[in-house]
């Protein structure tokens, strides 16, 4: 047997493990840095930011450090500390040509077979997808539209029956019309804070400067 052939087989074997949408995947990492949790999914094993616990009412924290609309059809979807309430949601139209399967707990987004590799939808599916809460004019810029929906909202503290609920709140809209789903009010230490936080950027600049100086000194030596 030629070693090049054997090596080729091994490369094929390992190359397949780096696939973008595999559904048999390596296990999550054993350890992650503080603030991160080990995960594995279609994109393979990695460390992700913890789900934030300070999302506004109507949203829930998701691994990766952002908030997602907590959609529901009944109280049972919401857990003990939330109730399912009718709210005005901001929807945009999305046409999907492929499906990766369901990614929302509430079965409200139509047929989503195959949570693994992408499957072509023929014909393509156009649907209204909620992406923000309609509580201010700026939360739902056209062509998006406010339409009725349901969200899990926080119970008012001290309310056992769940009759009093904290109104759902919108998250800020960015210049490009998308929603900034990082929770606010917790600075750079927040689970959803941008990766390039000030201390990290300062350290990177210092390291770059130190390397630059060393190379300059080496070049200047006779």
């Amino acid at each position, binding site marked *: *047997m030629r070693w090049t052939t054997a090596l080729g087989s091994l490369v094929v*074997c390992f190359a397949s493990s780096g696939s973008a949408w595999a*559904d*048999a*995947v390596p296990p*999550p990492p054993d350890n992650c840095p503080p603030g991160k949790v080990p995960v*594995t999914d279609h994109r393979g094993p990695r460390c992700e930011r913890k789900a934030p616990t300070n999302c506004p009412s109507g949203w829930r924290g998701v691994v990766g450090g952002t908030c997602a609309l907590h959609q529901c059809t009944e109280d049972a979807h919401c857990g003990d500390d939330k109730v399912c309430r009718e709210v005005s949601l901001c929807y945009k139209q999305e046409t999907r040509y492929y499906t990766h399967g369901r990614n929302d707990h509430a079965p409200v987004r*139509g047929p989503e077979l195959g949570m*693994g590799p992408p499957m072509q939808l023929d014909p393509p599916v156009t649907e209204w997808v909620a992406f923000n809460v309609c509580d201010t004019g700026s939360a739902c810029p056209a062509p998006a539209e406010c339409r009725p929906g349901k969200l899990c909202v926080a119970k008012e503290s001290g309310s056992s029956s769940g009759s009093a609920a904290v109104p759902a709140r919108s998250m800020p809209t960015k210049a490009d019309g998308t929603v900034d789903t990082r929770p606010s009010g917790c600075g750079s230490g927040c689970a959803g804070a941008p990766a390039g936080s000030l201390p990290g950027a300062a350290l990177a600049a210092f390291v770059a400067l130190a390397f630059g100086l060393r190379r300059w000194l080496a070049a200047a030596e006779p």
Partner: protein
Amino acid sequence: MRPAWSVLLLSGCAHAQAPRECPAGYMTDARASTELRDALRADPEGARLLEATAGRATFCFARGGPGVLTEGALLLDDAPADPRVVARAAHLLHHLARGERVTSGDPHSADERAASELEARLFARACQRSASPPAYCNQVPPP
């Protein structure tokens, strides 16, 4: 390349998997596992897959679980009665039964096509068996 070597190398890609504990964030829910096994057993292909992977599969549940297989653990959405989850579990058991530890992710590859077609069949039959089929059952044409 001689056949014996090819088999040895390929088996390095797809050796037998031992069942593993559920990763952090997932629950080994006995009731949900039983519910899912019952749903799979009610389907002829699902029952065959359960038999073929007996003692090698662990069902792990979390809200929004991605529907992937890792070393014998099936990471699933915590809705074991949902026809989509039943069908997805069958898809993953198909990979497990074939000893596929890491799949290509290529929907056009033969193994993935077979697994996806199986998933579609399971889904259609799970919808048919359901006493009150969810609305999305009507939107998927039978395979």
